[in-house]
Structure formats: structure tokens, C-alpha cells
């Protein structure tokens, strides 16, 4: 694979430790389209480096996973490739196993307490980030600072706050991986057991047996329903109509006296913290949160309001879901052959259900809440750099690497100190123009799913757990369409049901507004914060994700057929085409 001609300078903007080197040709790499489905802005690669740094620390040094170390990553043409580091020497595995049991078992044993403490740590971290002061460069240092003999001028804090912003973000990822692999591992143990005991059980049935119902990630959608109910109760439902923007609605509510004010207060209650969900998975600065862009939550309100007025109950039937889950757990238990197997099953399901709230719940704190604070702080710097003549537009900051941003900040600090203009404007504008062009070039290229020699087996637990990559599904990816007439696309059966309808191929979240009632959503990856569009669509198809992906979880909640992890749906399905989605078999059929 070569850097696309004309984009060499943009490629060079990524830090050197992310570039492929000749010796990398010997290794197997696969495209991490699950987390990075679009070409990466230079700044956004901070998400990759912070995440892999923390994931590797946890695997290699903290919990000492016996058979795997961290994940190496490289970037080319804006695409992130990753490769595992398996431990194969039996003596080394034995040595690491001993360490692992002293560490991981402590976490399992104290899981509930540690998860409670984890939430406290995350809230403290979030508070720290929220309390970082706003960026300020007054003309003269405030008098009180001088009289307090502070001794340090305001420009210094630009660098200080930037470094703290980055430091907090890296720290967040350490917490993200503090318990994640252990959580997935306990789930995988139960998953493997079910697959052996019941060879024909579907992945989604196993997932339903461990699914939690209190997870934070369902709450944002619940808040929209709550606001819809408030609107009806306050007699404001007429204000919420399709095609009216959030700003227009809020403006008209301002004329609605006490009721309007009451609804706006309820909105504020929901926003903190529940609108801190972004419309992606936390790896792109342009996956804005509901708080930053009320379009998504507000576009869901008219639909929910109509359902409430029609007498429909929008409450999640938590008790019913729990009863169904218990029925499945008991039912499969009864089907086991011996009391011995039932004993092992009880142990595994108990452990899986204990750890699963973390697996489902951590994302809200990390990929959503904290990540939004982080990117928004960087946006403040974007505005600062633009005000000081370094950028044409505040958002352009994401076309600079985090090191270049630091240089630009020092340029601003120096300019303020010296009373001279900043020096980098022309230079940065040229670089940014080049990089914008490169992203467009890269987005149009085909991305090979894997590079280098394909190994005979892939049993690295981290790769299997986090990416769902096994030798079998890799073969499917690499071989492309397997069906004779090219009319079928196969993926994971994520949620049961068969639906025929019009495909709406949504390549980025900005296009979400194109979805019409009854459309079948076809996208690279969905996220639970897309939940409000799920009440509009009739089925979902994604390129990426396994039966535990959030798209799959939400689809099951909404009872919509879903096929995920197809690898190629957005490439092969045309917008507007008629397709059939069979969520039980994991097959999408092209009809028109």
C-alpha cells in the first residue's frame, strides 16, 4: 500500500511513530474500520494514541494478560491499521499467568465496589475538565493578580491549560481500559460455553442473556421521551413539528410564558449530563454531542409526541425485559445435559452479569461525556488561534497535530508578550488547505481490509473481543461477495425479523436528516445515541460491529431487524435501492 500521490505532505503531518516502516511488511495488519471508519484529521489521531497507549498498558503491564501484549497501530492515507502482539513462549505465558491471577482476580472479586469507585474517579475527572478555566488574554493583566503578587502572567495559562486538557484526556483512557478487557473476557467465557453446549444458538440470544437494563447509554433516549411527555402535559405539543429547527422551537417557547419556561428548565435538567452523548463513537471531533447540536434530539421529539398523544406507552418495559432475560437464562440452563454443566453455567452467567454493567456503561463516561468536554476545549483553542490570525476558521485546528497546536499556542503567547503579530498564519493556512484536500482524496480510495501475511489462527483475546476478528470472518472480508449472483450481503445476525424497504445509505452523521419513516438505515457504524432515529427506521444494516455492538443492542431493544458487520453494505447498496434485511440469518438481499 502506498501513500496516495499528492498527499505525501498530509501523510507526513502524522507523528513519526504512526507511520509504516519497511519492516512492518513482515507483519499482519488489519484496518480498524470499527473505530475509524473515515479518514482521520491529524488532530483526531490523539484519540488513537491515547487509547492504544492505555489499552497496551492495561494488557501488558497492569493486568498482565498471559497471551497478549498491546496493540500496535499505523496510519496511511488517513486509515488506521492495527496489529496484535501475541505472547507465544510457554514459559513467558506461565509467568504472566501467575501475575494475571494476582491482578485480574482481585478486580473480579471486588468488581461491584471497584466499578462504583470507578464511577467516582470518572466523575472527579470530568469535574476537573469542566473546571479548567476559560481561555483569556486580557490587554492588561488584571490588577488583582498584580496586587496578589501572582507573579505569573495570563499567557502562561494557555499552555498550562492545553497540557492539562491533553493530560486529562490520556488519563481518561487509562480508566477506560481499567476494567474493560476483564469485563469482555468474562462475557466471552460465557459466550464460548453457550456456543459449545448449544452449537446452533445465535449470538444475539447469548447477548440477550447478559444484557443490562439500567445502563447509562439508554438514558439519553429516555430523556427525550421524558421531554416529549412534558411537552404534552404542558400543552406545548403543537410547537414541536417536523422541519422546524431547534432554535425556532426554543424561540417560540420563549413566548409561551410559564409553560414554555418550565419546559426549557426540564430541557436543562436533561442536558446535564444526558445530552453529553455524541453522535459517533468518540473518535472524531465532528461527531458533536446533543448539547452542541440539538438537531438530533429535537428531530426525535415530534415522533415521540405523536406516539404519546396516540396513547402509546413509551416506557421501556424494564420489568418485562428482565423477566424475559430470566426466562432465557433458566430455559437454557434446563436444557443442559448434567448438573455438572449447570454448575459451571451458573458460575459463568453470574460472573458475566456482574461484569456486564461496566461493559455497557463505561462508554457514556469516556467516549461521550469526557470526550465532548475534551474536543470542546480544543475548540476554544481553535477560536483563540483564529482570533490571533493563525487560522481562517476555528474548526481548522483539527487539521493540525497536537504538537503543531502547541507551537501555535506558543506563537500566540509570544505575540501577546511582545506586542508583535503572530507568525504562523500563512504557513498554517497552506498546510490546512493541503490536508483538507488529502482527506477528500483518501475518502474516495478503496481501503484494503488487511495488509501483510494473513496468520493461520487469530486467537489474540484482545483482537477477538474488541474487534470480533476471527480467522473465519477475516476470510469473508478478504474474499468479498461470496454469493453467485451478487445479490446477497452477509453479516452478523444482530436482531431478529425480516423487513423489505428502501435503503438509505448514510455515510456520515450529517446526513441523518435524510432518513424518512420506514427507511432501512445502511451505515458504516451506528451508535446508541442514534437511538432516536431507530423509531423512524424499519431495519438497520452496518458495515461494522458484532452482535454485541451498540447498534445490535439498540436494534434488539426496538425490535428492529438488524444485520451488522457486513464489511461492505455501504459500498454495495445504493441509496434508494430496495433491499430485504433478514436479521435472523444475517443476510441482506439486494432487490432492485
Amino acid at each position, binding site marked *: 500500500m502506498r501513500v496516495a500521490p499528492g498527499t505525501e505532505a498530509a501523510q507526513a503531518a502524522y507523528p513519526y511513530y504512526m507511520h509504516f516502516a519497511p519492516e512492518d511488511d513482515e507483519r499482519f495488519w488489519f484496518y480498524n474500520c470499527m473505530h475509524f471508519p473515515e479518514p482521520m484529521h491529524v488532530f483526531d489521531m490523539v484519540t488513537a494514541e491515547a487509547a492504544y497507549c492505555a489499552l497496551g498498558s492495561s494488557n501488558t503491564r497492569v493486568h498482565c*494478560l498471559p497471551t497478549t501484549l498491546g496493540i500496535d497501530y499505523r496510519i496511511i492515507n488517513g486509515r488506521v491499521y492495527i496489529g496484535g502482539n501475541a505472547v507465544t513462549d510457554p514459559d513467558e505465558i506461565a509467568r504472566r499467568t501467575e501475575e494475571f491471577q494476582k491482578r485480574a*482476580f482481585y478486580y473480579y472479586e471486588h468488581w461491584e465496589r471497584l466499578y462504583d469507585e470507578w464511577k467516582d474517579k470518572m466523575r472527579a475527572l470530568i469535574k476537573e475538565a469542566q473546571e479548567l478555566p476559560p481561555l483569556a488574554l486580557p490587554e492588561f493583566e488584571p490588577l488583582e493578580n498584580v496586587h496578589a503578587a501572582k507573579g505569573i502572567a495570563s499567557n502562561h495559562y494557555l499552555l498550562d491549560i492545553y497540557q492539562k486538557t491533553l493530560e486529562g484526556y490520556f488519563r481518561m483512557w487509562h480508566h477506560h481500559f481499567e476494567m474493560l478487557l476483564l469485563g469482555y473476557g468474562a462475557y466471552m467465557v460465557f459466550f464460548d*460455553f453457550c456456543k459449545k453446549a448449544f452449537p446452533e444458538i445465535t449470538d444475539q440470544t447469548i447477548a440477550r442473556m447478559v444484557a443490562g437494563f439500567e445502563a447509562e447509554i439508554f438514558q439519553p433516549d429516555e430523556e427525550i421521551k421524558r421531554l416529549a411527555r412534558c411537552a404534552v402535559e404542558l400543552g406545548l405539543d403543537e410547537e414541536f413539528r417536523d422541519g422546524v429547527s431547534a432554535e425556532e422551537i426554543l424561540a417560540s417557547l420563549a413566548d409561551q410564558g410559564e409553560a414554555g419556561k418550565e419546559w426549557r428548565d426540564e430541557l436543562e435538567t436533561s442536558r446535564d449530563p444526558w445530552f453529553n452523548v455524541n453522535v459517533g463513537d468518540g473518535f472524531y471531533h465532528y461527531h458533536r454531542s446533543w448539547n452542541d447540536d440539538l438537531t438530533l434530539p429535537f428531530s426525535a421529539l415530534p415522533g415521540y409526541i405523536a406516539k404519546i398523544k396516540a396513547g402509546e406507552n413509551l416506557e421501556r418495559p424494564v420489568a418485562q425485559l428482565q423477566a424475559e432475560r430470566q426466562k432465557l437464562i433458566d430455559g*437454557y440452563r434446563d436444557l443442559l*445435559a448434567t448438573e455438572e454443566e449447570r454448575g459451571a453455567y451458573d458460575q459463568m452467567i453470574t460472573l458475566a452479569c456482574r461484569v456486564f454493567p461496566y461493559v455497557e456503561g463505561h462508554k457514556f463516561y469516556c467516549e461521550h461525556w469526557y470526550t465532548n468536554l475534551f474536543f470542546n476545549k480544543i475548540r476554544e483553542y481553535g477560536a483563540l488561534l483564529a482570533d490571533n490570525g493563525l487560522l481562517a476558521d476555528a474548526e481548522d485546528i483539527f487539521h493540525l497535530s497536537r504538537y503543531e497546536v502547541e507551537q501555535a499556542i506558543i506563537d500566540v503567547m509570544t505575540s501577546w508578550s511582545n506586542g508583535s503579530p503572530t507568525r504562523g498564519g500563512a504557513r498554517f493556512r497552506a498546510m490546512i488547505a493541503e490536508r483538507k484536500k488529502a482527506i477528500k482524496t483518501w475518502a474516495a480510495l478503496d481501503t484494503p481490509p488487511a495488509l501483510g501475511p494473513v496468520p493461520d489462527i487469530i486467537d489474540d483475546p484482545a483482537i477477538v473481543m474488541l474487534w470480533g476478528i476471527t480467522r473465519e470472518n477475516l476470510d469473508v472480508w478478504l474474499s468479498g461477495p461470496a454469493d453467485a449472483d451478487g445479490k446477497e450481503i452477509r453479516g452478523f445476525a444482530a436482531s*431478529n425479523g425480516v423487513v423489505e424497504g428502501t435503503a438509505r445509505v448514510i455515510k456520515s452523521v450529517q446526513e441523518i436528516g435524510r432518513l424518512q419513516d420506514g427507511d432501512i438505515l445502511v451505515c458504516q457504524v451506528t451508535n446508541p445515541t442514534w437511538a432516536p432515529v431507530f423509531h423512524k427506521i424499519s431495519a438497520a444494516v452496518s458495515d461494522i460491529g458484532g452482535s454485541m455492538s451498540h447498534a445490535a443492542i439498540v436494534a434488539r431493544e426496538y425490535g428492529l431487524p438488524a444485520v451488522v458487520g457486513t464489511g461492505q453494505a455501504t459500498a454495495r447498496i445504493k441509496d434508494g435501492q430496495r433491499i430485504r434485511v433478514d436479521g435472523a440469518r444475517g443476510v441482506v438481499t439486494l432487490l432492485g
Partner: protein
Amino acid sequence: MGRGASSLCSGKARRFVESTETIAWFADIGLEDRPSVGGKGGSLGELTKADIDVPPGFVLRTGAFEKFIRALDAEEPLRAPVEALDPDDLDNVGVVTGTIRNRVLQAAMPSDVGDEVRIAYAALCADAPNAPVAVRSSATTEDAADASFAGLQDTYLWVIGVDEVLNMVRSCWASLYSVESVCYRRKHGFPEKDVAMAVVVQRMIDARTAGVMFTRSPTTGDRSVVTIEGAWGLGSAVVSGEVTPDRWVVAKLTEEITVRDISDKHIRQVPKDGGGIEHVDLPEDLRRAPSLSDQELITLKAIGQRAEKHYGRAQDIEWAVENGTGEIYLLQSRPETVWSAKEEAPVAKPQSDPMKHVMNIFGGRR
């Protein structure tokens, strides 16, 4: 098709006249009656008791066969010459058994047996005189042995009229004197006086769709799914392998239909005018159409589970969906033998500490 769109009522409700020493109605018997009603008869009785719909019918008990053979043996010895046969002398076995089969087919039915069959048949077909029935041999040997006991599986479909029924009863009995049956008995040294056979006489289902069902996956042994195979017309086409059936897998707990293999079904077996069955080509639009609806699959699955629960073990089942009414009947249910016979290592054993299970993932032993 288009014969008799009215439903047969369930076997349970159909005890038309009292059971006797010669005739046993399904509702009066169970597996414990196997020595006198055979495996098939006992199983149909058992299903009837479990409140599962089977086409109504009765069993001509083994006593009738004994009475018949005793009379024939008194006329001219029959058992002694069979017992004297050398199973390796196939030519001689062929000659001797041929003569005996002819005698069985042509001998008069003991008058009391004939009368009882006529009364029972009339009661069975009271709502539809000369309604078609199936006449099926019902062996008293263990099921596992049945398979190798060639000749004991005779089933005559779409039999019309009591004289023809009595002929088919004799045909079932005669099958005990096939070359294969006799050689099998001689090789194992089974005494002829213990040879016995019951015969099932049962109303015939004019099947729109029929097939088999396994309450444990025949391919993987999975206990959590029911595998259903079916094709248009009578089930005999599926059982004999003349048609590649549609195949579905239904999860017992979630009722998800996880496999749907719809095959190209080129023919179906249907009743022939005047009795018996024939093959007819299927019209193009039916060949690749699923022969069961989702709702029928779910209903069938539930019936399979009831049979499994009643017997306390996995079952291999034959079923039919009645033409016109869509009613589902079971024609047979017997224990699954392949997977049940396997010694299986447990998938996992309890650990002293539950968290040790995670070493299966993290310890590199996957």
C-alpha cells in the same frame, strides 16, 4: 387434491367402541402395552394420552396374529419348517418362505378376528364410510433393533374398504416371513413361538405438507433447537428420500427461525383414485415455495416439545398438516438414538472459584 376438507377430530375423542382383547383403541394404550400393541401402537397411544393430535385409529393386537398363525400351523406345520432353516442356504430360505407368505396372504381370517376388525373399522369410519386408512405393522421388538429387522416396517397408505384393510393386515403379517426377517431370526436363534406382530389401522391424513422433526439437532446434537424437514404432499416422499425437503431450525426458547433452507421439490406424493398413492410433478410456483408457514413451524415446534416432555427425552417425529384444514397431526414419535447414545464430555465443570473460568479466554487455551 381436494379430498375431505373436514378435520379429523383428535384421537383422544375417538374411542368409538370399547377396546377388547383383540382390538385396542389408541386412547386405551401406552408404551407399557408394547408386548401386545407393538412400538408404533404404544407410541400412538402415548401421544394420544399426552393430548397430542394423532389421526384416530386402533391396534389389532398380537393375539390376533397368534390365533391366525396357530390355526395355519395346525392345518399344516409352519413354525417347525422355519425353525429348521439354515440362514446361509438362501435358495432354500427363499423357497420355503415364499410358500409360507402365500399361505398367510391367502388364508381365511379367523372369523372372530375378522368380525372385530369390521366393527372397529366401521366405528373408525362412521363419519365417512370407506374413508382411507393407513395399515402399519407395529413390531414388539425394541426400536433400535427394528432398523435391522427388515420387513417389519411395512406401511400401506390410502387403503379403502374393510376387505382391503384385512388384506393389508395379512400383508403386514406376511412380511414377518420375508427372507430378511427369517434370516435375521435364524441368525439370532429367536424361537418362532415368540414371533409377534401388532397392526395399526389409522385414519389417513390427506397431507398438504408432511415430514419429520427432531427435537434435538441431528447434525450438531444441540438440545436447544428443533429441526423440521417437510415437503408438499404425503410424508412418505420425505421419509423415503424421494424429495429433498425444506429444512428449518427453530430455537426452542426464543422461537427464532434461524435456518430456512427451501429446496427445489420436484414431485409430491398424493392419494391415487381408488386407493394407494402416486407421484405427481409439482407446478413451478410450488417447487421453490416454503412448504410450511412461520406460524405452522412455531406450532409444530411446540408440539414436538410436548412430545419430548411427555417422554422425557429427545424425539424423532413424523408429522402431517391436513389439506384444507391446516390441522397438524403426529404420525409417529420415537426416541432419538444417535446423540443420546454418545458419551459426551461436559462442556465445562464447576470451578472451585468461578473466576477461574476466565482462564479459558485469557490463558491461551481456546
